[in-house]
């Protein structure tokens, strides 16, 4: 097959306060990944292990923002990516991690590290390398501008494929009834 005339688009991906389910769903595009790789190359991503996001055409972010490091990574993506996509329920509305928003952070830490049954001499970790948790978990669009959203928990591989191929073909991404899901 001929090489595409156009230079490959650079794509970065990351998971913030997410479970990697959206990345797993992305990999579920299966052999279409090979087709995709004819048109894109990965920058920072769990697939490449590149640690920082450089200038990119598309950034794809799974998970909401639950700690200070998430905010830094999200801003780095926004500064470097021409198009930023929020993927999955957590990135879009906080999702499962945001279910802690109804409890105070102190209560949560106390319960998880100290008070919970079965913990012996538990203490709240305070290593300076650990990012500080935020008071509340937030969706991405509350912190930076997001250009496109792929809802779902996780979105299906077909939904992700549809959005990426729409963008690669220069179309406005659109998910029909079979592909738009919040669950």
């Amino acid at each position, binding site marked *: 097959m001929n090489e595409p005339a156009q230079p490959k688009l650079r794509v970065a991906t990351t998971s913030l306060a997410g479970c990697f389910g959206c990345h797993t769903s992305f990999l579920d595009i299966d052999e279409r990944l090979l087709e995709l790789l004819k048109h894109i190359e990965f920058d920072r991503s769990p697939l490449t292990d590149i640690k920082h996001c450089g200038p990119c055409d598309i950034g794809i972010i799974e998970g909401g923002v639950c700690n200070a490091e998430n905010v830094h990574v999200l801003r780095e993506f926004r500064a470097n990516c021409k198009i930023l996509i929020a993927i999955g*329920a957590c990135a879009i509305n*906080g999702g*499962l991690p945001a279910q802690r928003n109804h409890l105070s952070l102190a209560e949560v830490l106390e319960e998880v590290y100290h008070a919970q049954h079965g913990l012996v001499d538990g203490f709240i970790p305070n290593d300076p390398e650990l990012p500080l948790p935020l008071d509340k978990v937030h*969706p991405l669009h509350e912190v930076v501008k997001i250009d496109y*959203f792929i*809802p779902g928990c996780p979105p299906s591989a077909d939904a992700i494929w549809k959005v990426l191929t729409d963008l690669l073909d220069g179309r406005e991404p659109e998910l029909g009834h079979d592909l738009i899901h919040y*669950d």
Partner: protein
Amino acid sequence: MINTFTLDGMSIPFSEGQTIIQAAMAAGVYIPHLCFNPQFKPHGSCKLCTVKVNGRQSSSCTHQALSGMVVESNTTQINDERRMLLQMLFVEGNHFCPSCEKSGNCQLQATAYELHMMSPHFDQFFPDRAVDASHPEYLLDFNRCILCSLCVRASRDVDSKNVFALSGRGIKSRLIVNAKSGLLADTDFCGDDKAANVCPVGVILKKRIGFAVPIGQRSFDEQPISASPHPVMKEV
């Protein structure tokens, strides 16, 4: 002579006394709506059913059909406004669909799919609302209430029980249970009540059947809400 009006250019027949949405539904044309249910008197509160009647915005669930009127519904401008109303409903409550028993059977969610709501757009309120699990058979998860008043109307007008009421004003509006304790267990609410089977979202839920039909095989997974606005839910 048959009375007709036009809706997005189509000629819609109606009979005396019908509202725009009733006539449209009878003709098989979908107008998005949440607080309207054909079995009840309209409430006119959610404004999802807003249309333009001879150029002026009005709720199609309360506006009577008149001969010759020109109604616009499926336009970019009206759908943009409807989507914004949906986004406000989503952020005002706590709608975590992946863990909601109603997901796939929910009219709020299905309407949001229909109107291509890709994100809630606004900042989340994350309000604190307690769940009422006091009743042995039913659960009330107020986190998802959109204040459509259908349970209020059903309990009052069909069941003659007045179990539910809307209380407060504006952003402080909330659904309450008419009992001294405020708990459902202390009312005469029961599963045969109309009010037990009318909530368009995931507030009034029968216990222990939540995932009998798996997510992905539910009413609005199979057909968009525009094809079947009030399907008989596949619940045991």
